[in-house]
């Protein structure tokens, strides 16, 4: 019985074989899709995950409080991370061995421990152990984000500085500028121009990572999107608030991701 099928198959050209497999995979894909649509109880899904009245209840506060706080954490973490990252990058490039080592150790240690652990350490561990609390409703979360983002950004910034032609530093030094003056006025402005696409990318990643701040205590007014959604789920015994929070994240990240893609295309063209 297999005989004629095999003969037919072997008689096909390479191109037709490829087309056959492509067609077969489309059929399987469509069957899975239809299966999901048929088998899932849509009424129940809508009722537990995007119940219209609960969706309505989220607004406007999910924007005016939660999304606003997500953006605040992102901006604070990004600025702090940029400052720490710049310092680490300059230490990494310095002539001084202790500085280079300190920077390398910081980067490895911080990146080797999950962000959530840093957030819990700074938000819960240190207050309990030492009785010290980072001040401000945003303080502990923003600090933890800065510390970790700084370690990741350090490499981006170092690569940006190293991508600036060596002749720029030589020309600046030959005019009598000190190393730091040359760095500030000549090298960094050009390095940051090169770093705009990777840094914007870092910003998008950070925006999503602020989600982890939800693990430590927050006041009602400093809840970010994930905490907002989670508390909403517990309060209403319904997944809708978290689903809406997810959609708000998407509304923030997709435009930025598109923007990065355009920047990268532009950067690639100008090379």
């Amino acid at each position, binding site marked *: 019985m297999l005989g004629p099928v095999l003969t037919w198959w072997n008689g096909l050209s390479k191109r037709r074989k490829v087309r056959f497999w492509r067609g077969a995979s489309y059929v399987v894909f469509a069957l899975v899709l239809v299966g999901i649509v048929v088998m899932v109880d849509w009424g129940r899904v809508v009722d537990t995950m995007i119940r219209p009245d609960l969706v309505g209840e989220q607004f406007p506060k999910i924007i005016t409080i939660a999304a606003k706080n997500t953006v605040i954490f992102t901006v604070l973490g990004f600025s702090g991370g940029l400052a720490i990252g710049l310092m680490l990058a300059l230490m990494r490039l310095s002539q001084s061995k202790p500085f280079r080592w300190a920077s390398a150790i910081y980067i490895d240690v911080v990146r080797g421990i999950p962000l959530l652990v840093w957030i819990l350490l700074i938000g819960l561990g240190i207050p309990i152990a030492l009785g010290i609390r980072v001040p401000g409703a945003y303080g502990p979360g923003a600090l933890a984000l800065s510390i970790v983002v700084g370690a990741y950004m350090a490499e981006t910034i170092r690569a940006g500085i190293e991508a600036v*032609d060596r*002749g*720029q530093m*030589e*020309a*600046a*030094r*030959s*005019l*009598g*500028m*000190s190393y730091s*003056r040359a760095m500030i*006025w*000549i090298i960094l*402005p*050009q390095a940051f*121009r090169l770093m705009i696409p990777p840094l914007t990318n870092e910003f998008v990643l950070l925006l999503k990572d602020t989600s982890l701040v939800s693990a430590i205590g927050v006041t009602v007014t400093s809840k970010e999107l994930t905490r907002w959604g989670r508390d909403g789920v517990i309060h209403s015994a319904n997944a809708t608030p978290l689903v809406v929070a997810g959609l708000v994240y998407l509304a923030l990240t997709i435009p930025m991701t598109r923007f990065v893609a355009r920047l990268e295309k532009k950067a690639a063209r100008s090379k």
Partner: protein
Amino acid sequence: MTKALEIRQLHKYFGDLEVLRGIDFEVDEGEVVCIIGPSGSGKSTLLRCVNRLEEPTRGTIVIEGQDITDPDTDTDDVRRRIGMVFQRFNLFNHLTVIDNVTIAQRKVLGRSKDEAVKIGMENLERVGVADKADQYPRKLSGGQQQRVAIARALSMNPDMMLFDEATSALDPELVGEVLGVMRNLAEEGMTMLVVTHEIGFAKGVADRVVFMDGGVVVEDGPPSKVLFDPEHERTRNFLRMVLEED
């Protein structure tokens, strides 16, 4: 009289490689000295030692009576008084032409913006690119960029100018305009140390020509002697090769 530049027994190693093997030579105030020689002869390294872009391994360099190889010497202060022009221009790409010629005046010499712009414009006029003041370097031709680089160095009022193969990266038709500016500068009495492949320029402008090979000064004298009646076989071979190219 104090010499503009005195070099004594200068040695420079890159790792195990001895690039400069005991250089001795002097430059008088207002003198134009051209350094010629095959690539790898150490002439660019010598030039870069003079403003300490390269750290000499051994030996002394004295500029107007000041030993700049002394560890206590303020290197930035030395460089401020020596202008340098590079093969690849090295204009600051993120700054306009006028900002290129004013930034060091303002950040290093502390001149006011108005004063720096006034001096910068004078120097841009001197090299013939004042009309490009508001452009970015990438919009300029190589010859124009190099002339801006000369104006940038001159705006610091240097006592001496170093030219490191200033015309080697230029398209042939643009070489003349840069050499012209250098010629004017020499006629105005600037002390100049010029590493170059332009034998014609050395012949017409230099007070002295130095031939370097293998990290040593092989020959040092007036152009008429070094270029037309050299004592050493190595110099003759080099000149024959260079002149055949033209």
